[in-house]
C-alpha cells in the first residue's frame, strides 16, 4: 500500500539530507508506527507520502499509484491528518467535513453515514454546527480525523496524531486506527510516544538522520536484544555518539 524506494530529500543545497535513501514498504492491514527523535525526518517522509513534497531521488507509491506520475489518483487513496490542526478555524465542523466529502467525491448518503457515525464516536454532534475556532485542541484533532476518514481511505496517514488529545479521545483514536487496519487498510503514523508504538503497532520503523535504522515487528526488533524494551532499543539505535539531534 505504501512503498518508498530509494527516496532522498534535501531542503537546501548545503544542508544535510532530510531523507537519505529511504526504503520502506507497508502492506494492507498493517498499523505502522514511525518513531524517531526530533528532526529525524518523520514529517518529511510523511509529506513525501502525501505528495506535499517531491523526492529528489527515488519514488513513492501509494496503493499502486506512483506519486510522481499519478498524484491525484494516489492522493485519492490517502486520508491525511496533519500535525497542525489550525487550518480552517472560521468554518463550522460540518462545513469542513462537507468540503472533504466534496473533494473526495463522497456521495451524500455515504457522507451522511460516515459523518454521523464518527461524530457519535468522537462525541462531536453538539459541536458540529459551531465554528472550529471555538473547539478545544482535542476537538480540532477529532474533526481532522473525521475529515480524513470520510472517504474510507485505504491508506490513513497521521502526523503526530495523539498530541493534545485527552486519554479518552486518545483511546478512541487508537481504537479507530486498529479497526481501520482490521478492515485490510494501512495505517501509518508518526509518534514520539514509544509506549503507544509498543502497544499499538504491528510494525515499527525507527528513523534517525533521514535513514531507517531498524524496522520490523516489536519481536523482530527485539531479536538481537532479548528482553529489551522499545525505549532501550530506540535509545541505542538513535545514539550517534552524543551528537546533537538537530
Amino acid at each position, binding site marked *: 500500500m505504501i512503498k518508498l524506494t530509494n527516496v532522498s530529500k534535501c*531542503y537546501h543545497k548545503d544542508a544535510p539530507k532530510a531523507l537519505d535513501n529511504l526504503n520502506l514498504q507497508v502492506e494492507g492491514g498493517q498499523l505502522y508506527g514511525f518513531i524517531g527523535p526530533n528532526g529525524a525526518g518523520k514529517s518529511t517522509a510523511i509529506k513525501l507520502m502525501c505528495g*506535499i513534497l517531491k523526492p529528489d531521488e527515488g519514488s513513492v507509491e501509494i496503493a499502486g499509484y506512483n506519486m510522481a506520475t499519478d498524484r491525484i489518483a494516489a*492522493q485519492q487513496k490517502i486520508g491525511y491528518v496533519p500535525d497542525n490542526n489550525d487550518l480552517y478555524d*472560521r468554518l463550522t465542523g460540518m462545513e469542513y467535513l462537507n*468540503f472533504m466529502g*466534496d473533494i473526495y467525491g463522497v456521495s451524500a448518503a455515504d457522507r451522511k453515514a460516515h459523518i454521523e457515525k464518527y461524530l457519535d464516536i468522537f462525541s462531536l454532534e453538539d459541536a458540529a*454546527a459551531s465554528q472550529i475556532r471555538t473547539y478545544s485542541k482535542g476537538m480540532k484533532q477529532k474533526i481532522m480525523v473525521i475529515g480524513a476518514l470520510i472517504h474510507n481511505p485505504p491508506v490513513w496517514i497521521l502526523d503526530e496524531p495523539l498530541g493534545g488529545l485527552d486519554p479518552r479521545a486518545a483511546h478512541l483514536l487508537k481504537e479507530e486506527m486498529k479497526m481501520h487496519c482490521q478492515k485490510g487498510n494501512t495505517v501509518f503514523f508518526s509518534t514520539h510516544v514509544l509506549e503507544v508504538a509498543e502497544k499499538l503497532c504491528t510494525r515499527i520503523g525507527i528513523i534517525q538522520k533521514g535513514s531507517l535504522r531498524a524496522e520490523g515487528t516489536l519481536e523482530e526488533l527485539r531479536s538481537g536484544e532479548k528482553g529489551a524494551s522499545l525505549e532501550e532499543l530506540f535509545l541505542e539505535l538513535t545514539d550517534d555518539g552524543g551528537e546533537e539531534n538537530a
Partner: protein
Amino acid sequence: MRKFFALLRIQLLARYADLKPSNLKNITDKKEKKKKQSTLLAYVLVAVMFGAMIVPFEYFMLEALAVLQMETLLPALAVTLSMVCTLIMSFFFIMTSLYFGKDAAYLAALPLKSSTVLSAKLTQVWLSETMISTLFIFPATILYGIKVGADWTLYLRMIPVWLTVSILPICIVTFLSALLIRLSALWKHREAMMTVGGMVLMMAYFVFIFAINTQPMDEMESVAGMIQLLTNNKALLQGITHLFPPAVWAAEGLLGNWGSLALSVMVSCAAVVFTVCAMAKPYRRLSLLQTQVPENKKEFKGDRHFSASTPFMACFRRELRQLTRISTYALNTFPTAIMPAFFIGVMGAALFSEIPEGESLRAALDMTGLNVDIIATGILLLMMGFMAGINPAVSTAVSREGRGGHGMLTSLPVDPKVYARAKLAVGMLLSFVGVALAGVIGCVLIPDFAAAIILACVLCCLYCYATNAISLCMDIKKPRLDWMTETEAIKQGTNVLKGMLLSLLMLVVLLGAGVGLFFLKVSFPVFALSLIVLMVLACWVSRRLMLRTAEKYYWQD
C-alpha cells in the same frame, strides 16, 4: 468542477465566516455576539460612507466634465481607476492567498490539481476585487447615463465591463508575484518583503495624492473647484485613461463600441486561461516552498549570544522583535511611525519649490505681523501628533501577547511595571525615530523655521509619551487576548480605536493650550517653555497611572 466549487466555497466561507448569519446565531456569549453585530454594522456604515463620498465626487466631476465637453472621460476614468486599484490592492491579497496561506501544505495533500487550487484562489480574489470595482463602475456609469440620457444598452454593457475589469490586473499581479518569489528567493525574507512593500505602496499612494490634488478638499466639492482641478490635470487624466490599451477597450465598450467590448471580454477570458495554464505547476512548487522554514545560516559563535542583561532589556528586545519580525505588526506600525517624516518632507519640498530664488519664506511671513514660529509649531505638531497618535504599537501591546503568551509572561518572576515600561519604551523608540527623522528633514528643507521644528519635535515626543502611557493603561486593563490572527490583534480591537480617540483628544487639548498662548501674545520662548512644562507634567501623571495600572491589572485575566 465539483472540486473547484468545493474549494472556492470553503475559501469564501473561511474568509467571510463572520458575515454568515448562522454563525452569528450560534454565538452563545452575549458580549461576543454584540461585538460581532457592531463590527458588521461598522462594515456596512463604512461602505455606505464610502459610497456617500464617491457619488457626490463623481457627480461634481461629471458636471465639470460636461462644461469642458468631456463627459465620456468619467466612465473611462472609472474603468482605469478600477484597474489601478485592483493592481495595487490585489497584490497583498494574492501574495497572502496564493503563497502565505497556512493551508498550502494541507491542500497539496488532497487529490486536487494545481490548476483547480489556483483557479479557486484566483476566483476568490476576483470576487473581492469585483466588489470593489462596483464602487467605481456603477456610480460613474449610472450618473453618466442619466446625464447624457443613455438608453438601456449602456447598463447592459456595464455588466460585462464590471465583471471583467479586474481580471487583467489580477493576472498581471499573479505573474508578478510568482516572479518576485521565484527570482529573488524572497520567500526566505517574506516578512521583510511584506513590510517594505507596504511602506512603498503607502508612500506611492500619498505621492500620487499630492501630485494630483492641488486643490483643497472643500474647493473640490463644487463644480468650479472641480473644473479648476480638471483643467490643471487635463493632460494627466487623459494620459492615464489611454495608458493601458485593455482599459481603453473596456471604456470604449462601455460607451457603445460593441467590438471593443467583445475584444475586452475576450482578452480578459484569454488572460485567465493563459494564467491558469502557465502558472498552475510553478504555483504549486512555489507555494509549497513557502511552507518550509527558511534555514538560518547565521553562525552561532561569539560572546554576544551569551551577554546577560536586565529583565527590562529582555522584555524590550522581545517586544521589539515581535514588532519587527511579524509582518502584520510591522506593516501596521513602521509606516505610521515614519509618516511624520514623509509629510514634513513633502510639505518642505512643496514650500521649497514655491519660494522664488533669493527670497526668504520667513521674511515674507514676518510681514503679516503674526508670531509665525508659534503658528508653524502648531501646524507641525498637529500633523506629526495626528500621525503618531494613530500608531497601534502601544495601544495593542498587551493584546498582542495573546492568551498563551500572556499566560507565559505572567508566570515569570518579573514585576509587571517592567513589562509596562518595556512596552512603552518600544513604542517611544518608534515615535522618536519618526519624529527625529521628521525634524532633520524639516530643518534641512525649511531652515528658517528650525526653532519651531525642533520645538514641535520635542512636544510631539512628550505628547507621544503621555498618550502611549494612557493607551497602554487601557490595554493592560482590558486586553483582547482571544484573537486568531495577528491582524485581529493589532487592528480589530476596540483598544486601537480608544487609543486613537484619546490621542486626538489630547492633541486637541494641547493645541487648545497653544492657541490660548498665541492669543495671549506671549513670546516664542515663553510659549515653548509653557507647553514643555505642561507636557512634562502630563507625562509624569500618565507614567504614574500606567505603572499603577500595570501593578493592579496586569496579572488579572
